[in-house]
C-alpha cells in the first residue's frame, strides 16, 4: 500500500482509547466515477449526491470541498484523513449526534 493510502487508514493503535477494540470492518472500494484525482486514487473519493445520500462507516465528508473520502477500513475517532482534491488534512472525531466527522487540522 502506498504512503497516501496509509493516511486514509491509520493503524488501529492510533485510534481513541475510548473506542471499543473490535476489529475494524474492511471494505472493497469500487470505482465511483470521481475523475478529479489521478486514476490510482479515484476509488478513495466520491461525489456527495445530496439529499437521500448517506455515509458508510468507512466514509467522511471533507468539510472544505464537500467530497466524500473513503477508506478500505471503517473509520474510528483519531484517524487521520487526507483529502487529495482540496489538499486538506483532517482528523476523524465523534460529533455531538454520535456520528463521525472530519475536522480540519491546520
Amino acid at each position, binding site marked *: 500500500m502506498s504512503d497516501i493510502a496509509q493516511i486514509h487508514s491509520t493503524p488501529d493503535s492510533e485510534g481513541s482509547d475510548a473506542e471499543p477494540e473490535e476489529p475494524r470492518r474492511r471494505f472493497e472500494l469500487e470505482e465511483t466515477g470521481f475523475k478529479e484525482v489521478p486514476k490510482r486514487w479515484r476509488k478513495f473519493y466520491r461525489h456527495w449526491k445530496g439529499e437521500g445520500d448517506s455515509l458508510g462507516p468507512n466514509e467522511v465528508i471533507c468539510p*472544505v470541498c464537500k467530497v466524500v473520502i473513503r477508506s478500505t477500513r471503517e473509520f474510528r475517532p483519531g484517524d487521520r484523513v487526507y483529502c487529495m482534491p482540496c*489538499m*486538506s488534512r483532517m482528523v476523524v472525531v465523534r460529533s455531538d449526534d454520535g456520528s463521525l466527522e472530519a475536522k*480540519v487540522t*491546520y
Partner: protein
Amino acid sequence: MQLVAGERCALAASSGLVNLAPDYPSKHFLATQTLDEARHVEIFTQRLFDLGVAKEDLESTIDRYANPNLVKFAEVLLEKVSDGDFIAGVVGQNIVLEGMAFTVFELLEATSRDLNPKFAQTLSGTIADERRHVGFGENRIGSLISEHPEKKPEIEKMQQEMSYYMLATFADVFSASGESIDEGRKLAAQQGADSLSTEWHGADLETATIEEIEGVLADTVLGEFKNRLGRIGIEYQSPSVPA
C-alpha cells in the same frame, strides 16, 4: 457575463497575490491558481462567443452587462491586493470569492446537467479547480491568521462588505432571470420533464420560485462563509440586506 467578470477578478487577484506571498510553497500554489483562473476566463469568454457575442464587442459587452455590484465586490478584494495585504487578499479571494463561486457553480451545474451537458461538463472542471483553491485558502490562512490575530477586525469588515455586494448581485441577477428560467423550464418539459427534476440544498429546482432559489443560494453561500471563517478563527459578520 457575470462568470467572466468574476473570473477576471479572480485572475487579477491571484496573480497579484503571487508576489505578496511570504513563502515559496504559497507562491507556487498561487501561480497554478493564476493559470486556473486564466483558463476559466478563457472558457467562459469562449462561451460568450458561442452565444453570439462578436470578438470586437467583447469588452464593450462586458462593460455594459457586468453587474455593478459584482464590480464593487471585485474592487473591495482588489484594493486589499493592491495595498499589499496578503492575508486579507487570500481570505477575500480563496475563501469569500472562491466560496461563492464554488456554490454558484454547483447550482449552475445542477441546473445544466440535463439541458446543457456541455456547459455542465465545463462547470464540473471548474468546480474541481475551486476545490483546490478553497483548500489552499483555509489551510494557508488557517495557520497565518493565528500568527497575526490583529488582522481579524479588518478582514471581518472586508468579508461583510463583500457579502453585501454579493447579495446585491444575486438580487439583481435573479430579478432579471425570471423569463429565461421560465424558458428553460418549458424547454425541459418538451425534452421530458421526468428526468429533469433536480434537488439542490433542499430546493426542487424544477418547481421553486425565483425568490426561493435566490434565498437558498444566498443562505448556502453565507452558511459556507460562516463555517469556513469559523474554522480559521475569524468571526463571520452578517451583511446588511440590500434594498
